[in-house]
C-alpha cells in the first residue's frame, strides 16, 4: 500500500483531470498526457469461459488513439459543426476506488472506477460505467498519463460516444 501523501496527490490529479473535461478545457486536459500516450478502450464481449473478455492489442477497440489523434478529436470538437457536442453535453465524472501501485523509478499504476454521466439537450441522459487502468509518470510535483486503458462494463454502449474517459 502506497503512502497517503502519494494517494492524495494522485487523487487530486485525477479529479482535476476529469474536471477539465467537464469544463470543456480539452487542450489543458491533453497537456496531462505524455507525447507517447496510448489512449485505449478495448472492445468487450461475453465469451464463454472468459469472464473479463477484453479484445487484445490488435483486436477490436472503441478507442485506440495516440496524442496526435486525441488532438484531432479536440480540434474537431472545437468546430461549430461537431454536432454531437453542439451544444455541448453536461458531463459529470465520478472517480472512485483509486488504487495505486509503484511501477519502477518514477511511474505508478493507477486503477479507478469511473461513472461518467452525460446529460445533453433537453432530456438525453446516458451513463457509462467502468474502470480505468492508467500508467502515470511523475512530472515535477504532478503527473502525466503515459498509458490509459478504459474498460467499460457495458457490452452494449448506451449511445455513440462523444466524450472522453
Amino acid at each position, binding site marked *: 500500500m502506497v503512502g497517503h501523501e502519494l494517494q492524495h496527490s494522485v487523487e487530486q490529479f485525477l479529479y482535476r483531470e476529469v474536471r477539465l473535461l467537464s469544463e470543456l478545457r480539452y487542450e489543458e486536459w491533453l497537456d496531462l498526457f505524455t507525447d507517447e500516450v496510448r489512449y485505449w478502450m478495448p472492445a468487450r464481449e461475453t465469451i464463454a469461459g472468459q469472464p473479463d473478455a477484453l479484445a487484445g492489442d490488435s483486436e477490436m477497440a472503441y478507442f485506440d488513439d495516440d496524442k496526435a489523434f486525441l488532438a*484531432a478529436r479536440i480540434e474537431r470538437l472545437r468546430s461549430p459543426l461537431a454536432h454531437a457536442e453542439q451544444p455541448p453535453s453536461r458531463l459529470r465524472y465520478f472517480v472512485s476506488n483509486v488504487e495505486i501501485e509503484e511501477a519502477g523509478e518514477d511511474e505508478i499504476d493507477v486503477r479507478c472506477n469511473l461513472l461518467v454521466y452525460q446529460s445533453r439537450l433537453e432530456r438525453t441522459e446516458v451513463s457509462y460505467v467502468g474502470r480505468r487502468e492508467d500508467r502515470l509518470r511523475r512530472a515535477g510535483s504532478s503527473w502525466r498519463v503515459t498509458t490509459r486503458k478504459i474498460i467499460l462494463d457495458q457490452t452494449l454502449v448506451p449511445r455513440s460516444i462523444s466524450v472522453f474517459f
Partner: protein
Amino acid sequence: MEQSERYVKFEEGLVSRKIFFDPEIYQAELERIFARCWLFLGHESQIPEPGDYMTAYMGEDPILVCRGADGTVRAFLNSCRHRGMRVCRADRGNARQFTCSFHGWTYANSGELRGVPLGQDAYGERLNKAEWGLLEVPKLTSYGGMLFGNWDAGAESLDDFLGELRWYLDVMVERQIGGIEFIPGVQRYSLDANWKIASENFAGDTYHLPYSHGSMFKLDIRQINPANPSFRGKDADYYNIGLDNGHGMTGIVFGDERYRVDLEAAKEYGAEVVEYVEECHQRLIKALPKHQAGVYALSFSNMFPNLSFNDFSALRPIGFYLWLPKGPSRIEAWNWCGIDRDAPKVVKDLARVDFTRIQSVTGIAAQDDTENFEQVTEATRGVVGQRLDFNYQMNVGQAPLDGPDDCPGRFAPYISETNQLNFYQHWAALFDAP
C-alpha cells in the same frame, strides 16, 4: 390503392413520417421485411473452427450461428424448443453442444435435440426428438465469407436477392488477397431512432456529408490514413447507384480512380504497402472484366434492409454496420471491422485504427450521425409533425445518368437522393406483399 401508397409517394419524392414511428407499421415490418429478407449474421472468420459459434439477431429474434463438426455453418433461433429459454447466453465461443440452463435439453451444434434429462424415464415414447431440434433458419448462404440467413423457406436465392449489387460486391471480395476476415470483437451501441433512418443514410445520403461531417472534413484526416477521401462534392465521375431489391451504393467511380489514390497513399508506408496495393489491383484484373476491376473499391452502401457497409480503399477497413431494429424508435447498432487476411501487418493496423476513429461508436463521423438520427426522431413524433412528409425531391423527374457500359444499376449523381427513393420503393413493395 396499395396500403403503402399512403406512405411512399415515389413520383413526388415524398415519404410519410408515419413509417418511422407507427407501432403497427413496425410490427408489419418485422413480419414482412425481416422475416422474409436475407439478413446479415456475421462473417465466417468469426467462427473459423469446428464448434465455433456466435450469437446474432434477425429482426428481434435471437440467433445462434454454429460451425458444425463437419465445418458447415448453420443458424438457429436461439430459443429452446422446450420452453423457450435462450440456449446460448454467450456472444461467442466453441461448443460441440448446448445444454439449456432451464431443464437441460441438449442440442448438438447441428441443431438436433441430442438428449433430454431423464429421457426415457420421463418421456417414454412421447417425445419425438426429431421434431424438436432447434428451429433452423431454413436458408443460409455464405458469400465472400459473409453469412446471410432468410426465414422464408420459399425466398429467392441470396444471389437473386443481391441482384445487381453482386456485381459490385465482387469487386470488394475479389480484391482481397487472403479474403475478408473480421478482426475479433464487435462494437454495439443503442440509438433512439428508427432503423430506416440509418439504413437509408448509407444507401444514398451523400448529401449529408459536407454538413453533417463538416467538422471531420475540416481536419486533415489523411493524417489518420492517407487513403482517406478528402471530401469531394459533386463530381461528374462519382456516381450513386440504385440497385434492384432496394440496395444502394454511393460514390462509385470507375477507371482505376480509387486505385490511383491508394497507390499514392501507399507510398507513405513504403515498398511493402505499395506492392500490396499493386497486388490487390492485379488480382482484380485477373478475376474481373477490366471495367469492373476499375471500380477497385466501393464507398458507403446499404444492402436492403439493414446492413450498411463501406470499403473505400485497400488501405482502409471494410466497415460493417448492422442496424438491428429494437422497436419503432430504437436501433441497436453492431459494428465490425473487415480486413484482408493476407494484408501486411502495417495495413491491418492502419485499417483497424482507422475503423475506431471514423465510423465506429467513438468515430468522428458516427457521433454526428447519431445526434442527427436521434433528433430527427425526437423532432418528428408529434401529431402535427406526423402529418408531414420527408423530402427526397432532389432528382425527381430527372433522367438517370448514363453510367459506363455494362455496369448494372440506375446511375445518379454523387450528390442525389434517388437511392433513398429506391430503398423506399422496395420497402413499399414488401410492405404490400400478402
